[in-house]
């Protein structure tokens, strides 16, 4: 077939192609659907966490006035925390799949652009998070008589802010692995836990020492959990916390995207895209 026919065969080559994003989501979906242990792993941990914290919540509701005032506060906290964790892990693990299969060389000699790849990583992270967290949230209703969905519309804001923060963290981890290779792989599983104490997941920010409160309030996650408690304890929507979360997320996403792009560029300088792996 003469090369001129290729032009007929191929679609246009836009600067950002949803089709290429979809192709990459399809690639990760094929991987996921082909392995039931991967599916099980997604739902297993959030469900176990929910059950554990559900019983703690039940116990504390009878022995702690604070917990008793906010129905399901600990269950809500653990489920929303998992949105952040799964959001970050969804980006990092999909990226690691490419490293494990040494596929980056093929991907980046195709027309795929880094921005499209990142969009696919985000898309897959959303799918993985929904698969992991929604069944656990539904299971909490018959088990503990508490529905996370009772948070109403603000739940969408909390979810969006936490998953976007998870994506930012995921991008930094991708950048670090591109820079330091598979030796940095372990970061994918531990980085988010460094933020757990200062995200004030299970207690108010006010519990922290003064200087650490400033650290906490510089993270979108702490504002989300403060906002969640305001609804559960006082029945009020704290728009100020939501606004802070959105603003900080924009800042973190900008910084983390810059770190990713710099690291990707450096990978092209060092030839790391062809020589990925250990």
């Amino acid at each position: 077939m003469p090369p001129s026919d290729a032009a007929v065969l191929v679609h246009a080559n836009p600067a950002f192609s949803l089709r290429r994003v979809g192709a990459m989501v399809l690639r990760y979906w094929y991987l996921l659907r082909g392995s039931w242990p991967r599916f099980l792993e997604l739902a297993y941990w959030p469900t176990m966490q929910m059950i554990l914290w559900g019983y703690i919540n039940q116990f504390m509701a009878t022995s702690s006035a604070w917990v008793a005032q906010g129905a399901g506060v600990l269950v809500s906290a653990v489920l929303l925390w998992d949105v952040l964790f799964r959001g970050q892990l969804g980006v990092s693990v999909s990226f690691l799949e490419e490293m494990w299969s040494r596929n980056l060389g093929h991907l980046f000699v195709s027309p795929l652009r880094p921005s499209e790849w990142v969009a696919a990583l985000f898309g897959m992270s959303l799918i993985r998070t929904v698969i992991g967290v929604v069944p656990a949230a539904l299971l909490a209703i018959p088990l503990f008589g508490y529905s996370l969905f009772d948070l109403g519309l603000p739940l969408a804001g909390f979810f969006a802010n936490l998953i976007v923060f998870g994506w930012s963290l995921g991008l930094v981890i991708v950048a670090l692995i591109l820079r330091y290779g598979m030796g940095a792989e372990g970061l994918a599983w531990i980085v988010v836990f460094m933020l757990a104490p200062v995200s004030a997941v299970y207690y108010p920010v006010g519990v922290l020492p003064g200087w650490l409160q400033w650290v906490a309030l510089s993270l979108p996650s702490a504002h989300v959990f403060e906002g969640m408690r305001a609804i559960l304890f006082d029945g009020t929507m704290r728009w100020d916390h939501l606004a802070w979360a959105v603003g900080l997320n924009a800042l973190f996403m900008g910084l983390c995207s810059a770190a990713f792009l710099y690291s990707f560029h450096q990978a092209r300088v060092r030839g790391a895209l062809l020589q990925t792996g250990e």
Partner: protein
Amino acid sequence: MDQCAKQHAIRAENLTKRYGTARSGEVTAVDGISFTVAAGSVTGLLGGNGAGKTTTISMLLGLLLPTSGTVEVLGVDMVRHRHAALPRMNFSSPYVELPHRLTVRENLTVYGHLYGLKGVTRRVEELAEHLELTRFLERPSGGLSAGQKTRVALAKALLNRPELLLLDEPTASLDPDTADWIRTYLERYRMESGATILLASHNMLEVERLCDDVLVMRQGRIVDHGSPAGLLARYGRTSLEDVFLDIARDRANGEDARREAADAAE
């Protein structure tokens, strides 16, 4: 596209790649090479291990940024605008495998969409038939033999009917029958499509059979080039393997070799 781009599928000028820093120690993998590859030709890139072939191919693909120099592929500056050329070219290497856990069909489908093909399913099945892969389409790519994997990699490389095909050792570790099959397929593809092929190879018989032109690299430099017949005549050899050894062992222009032969005759 200017006249030069029409004549040359690839044009490299003073292309240099250094790794490391002055403090940690610099390694010059490619040292100021300049060459062109004529559109529609099959060009072989020869050289021993560490000669700079893979580094050169990586720069042609835009995967690796040169330290200095320029590289144009299909008339496109690969450092700044590689996305304009990537849909029109493709690449295959036995050292860069497709994801093992995806089936052959899934892998080819994903890449078909990445290349923006219309009628991906039809194209995948058409290529599978041409490359005798139909019965392996639903098998995980990781479970295939070396020869089958090579054919799958070639199918991926041909998905977009590339105008330029870069092949890194396309028949490495294949048995002679499978290797011959691949070479025949490449010859037919080139004849039918008019595509340009640049292939790095250690197999001199393959280069003699497929290539119109040969670039020979040693220590990051192009030390000779020409048609296989021209190189044989210039070095006074009967096989490219001997020419390769002359160059690899720095026996310039075959003088040492001829001297050795004369000494042996005496």
